């Protein structure tokens, strides 16, 4: 199968949906003429013009709010926010408006909106550009949270998100944009709420998403060397979250480590650990351990930043703690 980059998969997904449906349009900062800070909209203005690929002022709350209004009127906007940290600027529009309108109006209006934004650190962008805050959006009901780790998942899930009649926060990762993976020619969709086993294993389950899937796979390699077969489970979407797949896998392996790039303290991993011990209290052979970012804003200095972020080695350590 052909291999393409993560950002190219995103471009294909958007282009295909835009060709199929004139209601789909893009808006965001420097997504048009400039082609997108991370090239994720490259070439789209050339094909679709400035009506459907709209460069905006720097006003995140406005971007989300305008997209929200257009969605209420039945269009399918796909706004891009340059980073998840800037999504915080639009937090009120996303949480108090986008995620609540359908409910508080008793289902009268739908909000078919897909907000794209990359999270993640690792490139020394410091404390105001690099954080992973998916946990807040999973905590608050009313918005789907999609967070693919491979080009294949990125394309299939973005197409599904754009067709979804509910708001979706589609979280990308700065370090994944240039990653390469197999993506079939032509159209396919991946349903929300279906986890994917990125590597099968029998001794321990590693639940990881976004860039941490790559770290988990590296960890699994290392662990295989130690004779430990780790299963790497990628939920791919955090709302809905495929509890069934997680419970089934851990019921089998009886051990679990959750790896996320966000702050570990009150992260999504905490919810997974909490539910595992609720539902598999007697099946678990060891505590569920969590790997995540250190409880600090991300520092600029390379070594410090790396020390703050979770890596394969941390996952290995956690697995060894509960398997030996």
């Amino acid at each position, binding site marked *: 199968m052909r291999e393409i980059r993560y950002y190219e998969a995103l471009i294909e997904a958007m282009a295909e949906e835009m060709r199929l449906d004139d209601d789909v349009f893009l808006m965001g900062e420097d997504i048009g003429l400039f082609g997108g800070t991370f090239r994720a909209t490259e070439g789209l203005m050339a094909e679709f013009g400035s009506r459907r690929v709209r460069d905006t002022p720097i006003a995140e709350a406005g971007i989300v709010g305008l997209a929200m209004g257009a969605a209420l009127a039945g*269009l399918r906007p796909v706004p891009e926010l340059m980073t998840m940290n800037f999504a915080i600027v639009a937090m009120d529009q996303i949480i108090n408006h986008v995620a609540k309108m359908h409910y508080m109006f008793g289902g009268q*209006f739908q909000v078919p909106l897909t907000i794209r934004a990359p999270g993640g650190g690792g490139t020394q962008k410091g404390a105001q550009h690099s954080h992973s805050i998916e946990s807040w959006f999973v905590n608050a009901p*009313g918005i789907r949270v999609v967070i693919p780790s491979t080009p294949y998942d990125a394309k299939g899930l973005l197409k599904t998100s754009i067709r979804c009649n509910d708001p979706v926060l589609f979280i990308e990762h700065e370090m994944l944009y240039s990653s390469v993976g197999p993506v079939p020619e032509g159209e396919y969709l991946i349903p929300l709420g279906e986890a994917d086993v990125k590597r099968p294993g029998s001794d321990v389950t590693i639940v990881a998403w976004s860039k941490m899937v790559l770290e988990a796979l590296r960890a699994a390699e290392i662990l295989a060397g130690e004779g430990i077969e780790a299963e790497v489970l990628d939920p791919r979407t955090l709302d*809905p979250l495929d509890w069934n797949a997680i419970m089934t896998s851990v019921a089998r392996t009886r051990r679990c480590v959750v790896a996320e790039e966000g702050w570990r303290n009150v992260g999504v991993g905490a919810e997974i650990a909490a539910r595992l011990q609720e539902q598999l209290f007697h099946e678990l052979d060891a505590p569920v351990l969590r790997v995540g970012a250190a409880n600090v804003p991300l520092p600029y200095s390379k070594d410090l930043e790396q020390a703050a972020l979770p890596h394969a080695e941390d996952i290995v350590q956690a697995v060894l703690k509960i398997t030996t």
Partner: protein
Amino acid sequence: MITATAKLRMYRQMLLIRRLEERVAEMYGEQAIGGFTHLYIGQEAVATGAISALNHDDYVIGTYRDHGHFLAREGDPKKFMAELFGRETGICHGKGGSMHLADMENYFFGGTGIVGGSMPIAAGLGLACSYREDDRIVMSFFGDGATNQGVWHEALNFAKIWNLPVIFVCENNFYGIGTDVRLSSSLTEVYKKASGYGMPGYRVNGMDVLEVRKLCDDVVKHVRAGSGPALIEARCYRYQGHSMTDPGRYRARAEEDLWRKRDPIPRLARTLLEEGIASEERLQELDAEIEEICDAAVEFAQESPMPSPSALYDHVFSERYPSDPHA
């Protein structure tokens, strides 16, 4: 030129809002209605005059002070009252309440509780109009206090640079809760804020429904023709407290009295009589009609069932998945 029928309809509209809200106050007192409830009494001329200048399928959006706009949009008084009672038959099935009325059939997008929060959404509705090149326009209602909120600025800028068909109607009642506009706003003549966006700004007496209508007929014509967004400041006054729980100690008695003399409803009544559009008798008939509507609305609300407990998880999303709570 505003026809006699139009004038009479506006009178009826204002009276309906006034009387229904008097019932709301009464029912709130009886604790049949809860939460935050903000009355529109005193400002009826603004929503009535402005909205009457629109087509039925134009888009309208407002704030938590939304009773008048919902009703001026021809929302059903029964579903209105039932919503405030938190009943299953309410326009939002009891999920929204007083602050979050919305009415899909009448293109009324609510009813939002975050001051300023509706501004970019209004611009987004305008974006949809311009994107589809239908000849709809948007009317966005908000208060003087909202104009100092960041998203207000973003929305006006977006509307201007993209030439969106949005009429921003500021209902300047001179207070944000208890805060005098002179303490909160660097420009107290709100319409002048339009200059910061190269947008036309107009001021109108919001206590005179005919003046409001006249100006809006004009502005609507231009905006529909593609002249881009406009800002209207309608100066008005709310006769009640900010919400049902507001003692309202911050306003001078004399000021309140002055504005009560400007009550838009008797004012229009005088015009109707002077112009021979309606007789005393006709107006009394109208009173009676409206009393009946109010009675029916309250009765409907009282007799309507509460939402079933299972409704709790409805409408979080329109599409469900197995792992959703109680899916």
